[in-house]
């Protein structure tokens, strides 16, 4: 990366690969690009390699090959300098069960060489407040519900101001209300300038807050990009309804415009829009004298795209 490049990436990987000793390839040469300031939805079914990727980004697991950069610095070498600027939630919250929520945060803060002990109490209070755990701060972690544990994990990630948040399945175990709150929190942090990489196996839970989406399946990054651009991609279809006498003319126009998979279904024609603009198509049809009764453009939803790419049902990815 050079200082002059137009986009700087908060997270970037090049050919990142992890092959476990068992021979299983958990992550297979992925090139992740999370632009600064983005909310990047890192999606994929359970077992698709999201968590292993995140573990490699944080220097917990060594890549078999490939490289990773966090905030423009090479990991795991620069971990000491970079990780204090990164808040994390990896594979669910983990705390000492016999300590209270606030004692667990104190423990983490005391272990952090960059944390100022003088502001420790205030920062812990603020973080607990932010995730709505103030009332349960003194309760032992053992007694926390799954949702409270998840909230404490988020509080730990927010103990210090962060430039990047890596949140692995932050909505796991939360009820719909809690999930909404997490989304709200992510939006709030993003508005304040924090880049967020958030993983989930449930697209619907995070789709609304994401500016970018990456979809993993079987260890590969199947697709990534801006959310709007992804939904617009290739698969957009157009349906033209006309009178029985104009069907042939309409089909000829669509073919002439280079639309693929033109097929008639009674008086309705379906085609893949491809690179053509919907306005051009409708104008050409009208120009050819086609009696246009209906004209519909259907973009595949992200959900359809996700299912299309990763498969459906209960089959675990591997």
């Amino acid at each position, binding site marked *: 990366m*050079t200082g002059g490049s137009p986009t700087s990436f908060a997270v970037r990987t090049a050919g990142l690969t992890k092959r476990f000793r068992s021979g299983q390839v958990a992550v297979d040469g992925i090139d992740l690009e999370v632009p600064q300031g983005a909310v990047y939805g890192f999606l994929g079914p359970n077992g698709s390699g999201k968590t292993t990727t995140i573990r490699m980004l*944080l220097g917990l697991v060594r890549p078999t090959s490939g490289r990773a950069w966090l905030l*423009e610095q090479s990991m795991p070498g620069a971990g000491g300098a970079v990780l*204090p600027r990164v808040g994390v939630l990896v594979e669910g919250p983990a705390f000492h069960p*016999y300590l209270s929520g606030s004692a667990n945060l104190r423990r983490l803060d*005391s272990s952090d060489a960059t944390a100022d*002990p003088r502001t420790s109490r205030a920062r812990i209070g603020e973080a607990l407040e932010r995730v709505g755990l103030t009332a349960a701060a003194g309760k032992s972690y053992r007694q926390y519900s799954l949702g409270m544990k998840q909230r404490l994990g988020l509080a730990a990630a927010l103990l210090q101001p962060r430039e990047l948040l890596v949140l692995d399945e932050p909505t796991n175990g939360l009820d719909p209300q809690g999930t909404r709150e997490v989304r709200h929190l992510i939006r709030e942090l993003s508005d304040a300038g924090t880049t967020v990489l958030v993983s989930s196996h449930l697209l619907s839970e995070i789709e609304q807050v994401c500016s970018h989406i990456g979809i993993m399946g079987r260890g590969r990054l199947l697709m990534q990009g801006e959310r709007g651009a992804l939904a617009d991609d290739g698969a957009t279809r157009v349906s033209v309804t006309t009178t029985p006498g104009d069907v042939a003319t309409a089909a000829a126009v669509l073919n002439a415009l280079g639309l693929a998979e033109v097929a008639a279904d009674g008086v309705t024609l379906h085609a893949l829009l491809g690179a053509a603009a919907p306005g051009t198509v409708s104008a050409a049809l009208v120009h050819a004298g086609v009696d246009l009764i209906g004209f519909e453009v259907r973009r595949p939803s992200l959900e359809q795209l996700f299912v299309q790419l990763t498969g459906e049902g209960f089959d675990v990815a591997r």
Partner: protein
Amino acid sequence: MSPADHTAAAIAPAQVPGSRWRFLRSELRLVFGRRRNLALLAGLAAVPLLLGTVLFIAQDAGLGGQGPGFVGRVTGNGLFLVIAALFMCLPFLLPLTIAIASGDAVAGEAQTGTLRYLLALPVSRTRLLGVKAAAALAFAVTAVLAIAVVALITGALYFGLSDMTLLSGTTVPLADGIARMAGVVGYVALSLTGLVAVGLFFSTLTEVPVGAMAATVILSIVSTVLDSLPQLAAIHPGLLTHHWFDFAEFLRIGVDWGVLGQGLAVQAAWVAIFGSLAWSRFMTADVSS
């Protein structure tokens, strides 16, 4: 990529002075605040209490002066309860306690999953291992002290403290006797450092703390068994447990520091070997717990 690196390095949060001690204090609070560990210490402290009580009740039963390892001398001088209690705890109870504390050090954090969060803070792996080792050592020293202090108090209350008669029959003043007991406590505590290093190493190998604890206890038992086979006399001097009972040197009129030094040198070797094994293993380990 240097310009970006420079800016980033410039705004990287600086380490707060004294953060090392803050982390160590936090670790000590964790170890000594844990109920299981306190129960272990209480259990060890109960040994001299029970032993003293039994000896006190039975002292008129005509068995006076009998029993293994200085037990017979306790009724005459409470100071000997320190030695008798350590003598009873050293073969099994102390190694078990040390194994639990040191085996839990890294594997315990791995099991609860807190290890990944510590490393992502980040805490450097070397610093984490160092703090874990320091806390485990502190626990070992506390365990030995717990036995010795309770033994001294119990002995004083039941039997009184008096001038100490050494192995040779010579008597030294009480103050000298207490200083010798302090020497015994110090030697026993240092004798356990090798086992702490072994436990720490096993602890870096697994996410199951019980496994690391068991392996550590087994190693100390195997060492004792090998030490009892005369056919293996050649390897005896290097065994982890071989010099443990050399603390009796402190009961001779002229303490042979050479014998004690040899025992401590063996411990230092075990610490060096298993300390570096633990470090090299932990530095490269994938943390997937």
